[in-house]
């Protein structure tokens, strides 16, 4: 895993002139982590999408750098793993097929069958890997999202509402993923839960944009 750093400068987001947040700025060096907190509707998920290149900011820049060289927006997706309530897997495929298909589509970064197997074992879905996702419970779907997020060993792990739908064992699995990511890459957690926010070294509070 290569060291990656993130610099966010003056990021502002508006939807149809409605201000969501304004002038978000921070820098994250390799091995650091940040919790994005704030009340409902403060723009945590929107900010997470901007970090992942899924939305563009109205103003400001998000720059990822590797060894001092900036990475293009189109290339950053290979370095990011995302878990989010908005992310859905394909119901008509099994858990294993989902990871295989999506890894083949993400052709720029090689994912072997061993890596897929390792990800499924990490999240505890190995035994149910050949079952269709439509037969999974909401907790199992959340676990599959984790497998999808970590299968390519991303340098940046972005977790939006990280423990939703998970049981105690599932939360322990998330904590192990978080621990591993903190020691090897960047971690961004968007949450309202104080305990989850404590996983991170830094904190960013959203919610004062309209004041």
């Amino acid at each position, binding site marked *: 895993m290569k060291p990656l750093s993130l610099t966010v400068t003056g990021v502002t987001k508006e939807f149809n002139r409605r201000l969501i947040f304004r002038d978000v700025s921070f820098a994250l060096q390799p091995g650091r982590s940040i919790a994005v907190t704030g009340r409902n509707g403060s723009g945590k998920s929107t900010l997470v999408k901007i970090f992942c290149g*899924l939305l563009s900011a109205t103003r400001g820049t998000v720059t990822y750098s590797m060894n001092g060289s900036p990475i293009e927006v189109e290339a950053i997706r290979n370095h990011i793993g*995302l878990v989010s309530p*908005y*992310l859905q*897997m*394909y*119901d008509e495929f099994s858990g294993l097929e989902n990871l295989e298909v999506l890894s*083949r*589509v993400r052709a720029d970064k090689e994912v072997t069958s061993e890596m897929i197997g390792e990800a499924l074992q990490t999240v505890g879905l190995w035994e149910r890997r050949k079952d269709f996702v439509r037969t999974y419970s909401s907790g199992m779907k959340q676990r599959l999202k984790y497998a999808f997020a970590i299968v390519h060993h991303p340098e940046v792990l972005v977790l939006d509402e990280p423990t939703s739908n998970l049981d105690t064992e599932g939360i322990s699995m998330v904590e192990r993923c978080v621990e591993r990511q903190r020691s090897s890459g960047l971690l961004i957690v968007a949450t309202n839960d104080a305990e989850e926010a404590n996983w991170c070294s830094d904190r960013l509070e959203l919610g004062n944009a309209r004041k």
Partner: protein
Amino acid sequence: MSVSATYALFRKDVHSEIRTRYALNALIMFVVVAVATILFALRSDQPTSSVLAGLYWVVVFFTAMSGLSRTFVSEEERGTTMTLQLVANPSTVYFAKLIFNTVLTISLTIAVTLLYVTVFADSFVIQTMSTFLVTVILGSLGFASASTIIAAIVAKANTRGTLYPVLSFPVLVVLLMTVMAATTKALDGEPFEAALGDFQILAGYILAMTGGSYLLFDYVWKE
């Protein structure tokens, strides 16, 4: 754009379609119902070749409208759009969906042709096969290239069902007029050279539509 990623996404769409039949069932049902309705309406009448060519492409147009939008609408409805955005760049998605829609349209035109030849055995006689084949292939490519970008736009709208044919018609009207003219020539037994002008229009249409869509797709797909 990565060729292997485009192929992987196309394969994903094919497997997904085989398992869910999102578009396939709609296409098959529409073809059967439309051809049966035309058959009942015409009864023992002997329509001219231009009328038959027109009806042939009307069936293809409305069948395509009922099925081709599914490529993007199904991703949007199932909430998998963001998953795709996360793993694939926009050009990969565009070309994979374009290839899928092209294959679907060609299969559709083959099915409509077989039905027409069977049902209207006396009047739908293809006399210049080469003209007909080139028309069907170029027509299918044109349909797929236009309907793919329109499907991507429509998938983001709230009134998807009604918007698709309404938005498609003005974009496809040039294509429809040209393929109808070329098909009439094939049914009338005119030589292949007589339809060359039509083929040039179709080729220009496909190039312009695909090029324009490729440039526009980034903006449609991302937000």
